[in-house]
């Protein structure tokens, strides 16, 4: 977790330099991304306006995410969202409702071996599975600089079309948009 936060803030510093570029460049978001908040991961994304003015707009957002349940599964997500963004309590805060459709790949640990003499684990057998992941999400963001905003974004999704029955997912994201 500590490493993840360091990466997050280093990334923020990196993109802050980029944020000084001329207007028109799409914003980049980098965030802590997790299943239930405690299966940690990272997500990056960008956002393109579809319609509306600078305050209220329809946006399109492609994203790449990763999260893991340590010792059990690792997950990669490609997600596309369409959302409606509007100001909230003044121009420094905003909210955004979005609907998304993602492709989720999961690699899950099936079995492993334990060596009785030294306790080492090995022979890890993993199995992959692929899902469609429609989501709805609510994002609350606030700007701390004219080109920097922070956001918190819970999302509810359903894993579909995997080997097993569908399953609800609760995803949580917290990050910076530059």
């Amino acid at each position: 977790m500590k490493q993840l936060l360091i990466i997050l803030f280093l990334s923020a510093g990196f993109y802050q330099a980029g944020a000084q570029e001329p207007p028109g460049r799409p914003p980049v978001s980098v965030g802590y991304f997790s299943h239930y908040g405690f299966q940690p991961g990272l997500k990056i994304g960008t956002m393109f306006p579809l319609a509306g003015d600078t305050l209220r707009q329809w946006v399109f957002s492609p994203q790449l995410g990763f999260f893991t349940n340590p010792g059990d599964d690792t997950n990669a997500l490609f997600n596309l969202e369409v959302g409606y963004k509007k100001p909230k309590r003044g121009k420094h805060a905003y909210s955004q409702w979005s609907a998304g459709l993602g492709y989720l790949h999961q690699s899950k640990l099936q079995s492993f071996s334990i060596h009785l003499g030294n306790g080492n684990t090995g022979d890890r057998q993993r199995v992959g599975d692929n899902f469609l992941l429609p989501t709805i999400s609510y994002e609350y963001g606030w700007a701390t600089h004219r080109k920097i905003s922070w956001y918190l974004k819970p999302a509810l999704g359903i894993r579909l079309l995997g080997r097993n029955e569908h399953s609800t997912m609760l995803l949580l994201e917290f990050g910076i948009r530059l």
Partner: protein
Amino acid sequence: MNRNKGKNTRTMDRKEFIKTCSALGLGAYLFPSLLTGCSPEEDSYPEFDVNFSGKVLIVGAGAAGITAGYVLNQYGIDFEIIEAAPVYGGRVKEISGFADFPIDLGGEWIHTDATILSTLINDSSVDAKIDIINYSPETLYLWNNNKLKKRNFFSNFYGELKFKSTTWFSFFDNYMMPAIGNRITLNSPVTAIDYSTDKVRVTNTNNDIFEGDRLILTVPLTILKQNRIDFTPALPASKIAALDEIYMPDGIKVFMEFSERFYPDITYEGGLADVINGDEGEKIYYDAAFGKDTNRNILGLFSVGSPSTRYTSIATDEELVQYILNELDEMFDGKASRHYIKHVTQNWSKEPYIGGSYTHGDNSSAAPILKESLDGKVYFAGETYAPEDYATVHGAAQSAYVAVEQILKG
């Protein structure tokens, strides 16, 4: 021994799932990684100080008794194991031949990090591997108010470990028993323990007398609670009072083979609140072939405590399986009867030298008293006396290490 261990982290196991949620409320569902991350494990046991050279009697050849003998053998201490039943293993027991993989009729799940297996063997010269299943169910249903409800969402918080092609029984049988098998006397139910002199004398139902300098008593809790062993001197009042604080309720396991799979990975009985407040017991139907190399459809019923009594009290095996099939038919639209092939039952409540499942109740105040030795001569080991994870197989084995360490300390 300083060994480099590769840890396998995991989500909550069934016991943690229930115990933790019970202690912390629903919020705990959100913190499985943090909670399991706190699970303490010993990498290996240190070399014990040895100030003892006599003979140790061990009463009971279950997980604790076998482990106690195994450790004493490692230290070259003379010992003898006295077992009431015609077979060793106690509540670790397997059946082979029912399916194309051995089935644990007793303790089945590994309720901790898999490195515990190496820790218990505690011998770096052992060159063998055991395959472990990451038991992480995907489909979880609740059977509540005669309705089957899909709650796959909660399966994400549940995970533990199981043996893949072996069992808890074969773990003890393959890696501990070869060194100690000739030291066990079977069919020898103990009726009396006399620790009034320097020696400890044990009498069995045949009036055979065994004599040693120390004794490790590993009989199930029910045997002590039912006063089936006469102690001389009598057990202290504090110990008897502590025994009254905990109990060992009914327990049963049934495995059924079906020609088709119609069930999820796990089906809990009751609502979510019942699952969380599982202090009175639990009942699950589970895919016993999960993660195994098999195409057979084996469904297990595991039930302990009050939910199990309805099964353990049924008189005959035929009536029991019909009762279960009726229940499953109700859940799964008659598919159980249509696809039923065969079954095997293990009613732990009716095992004459077991008499139930495993320790229940809040033993936080009872455990320290129960773990005390009798005059430094009679020591206790078993799942009831586990140093941390009571009511588990590995906890029983760990308690044997504690008892042996105390004896060797002198």
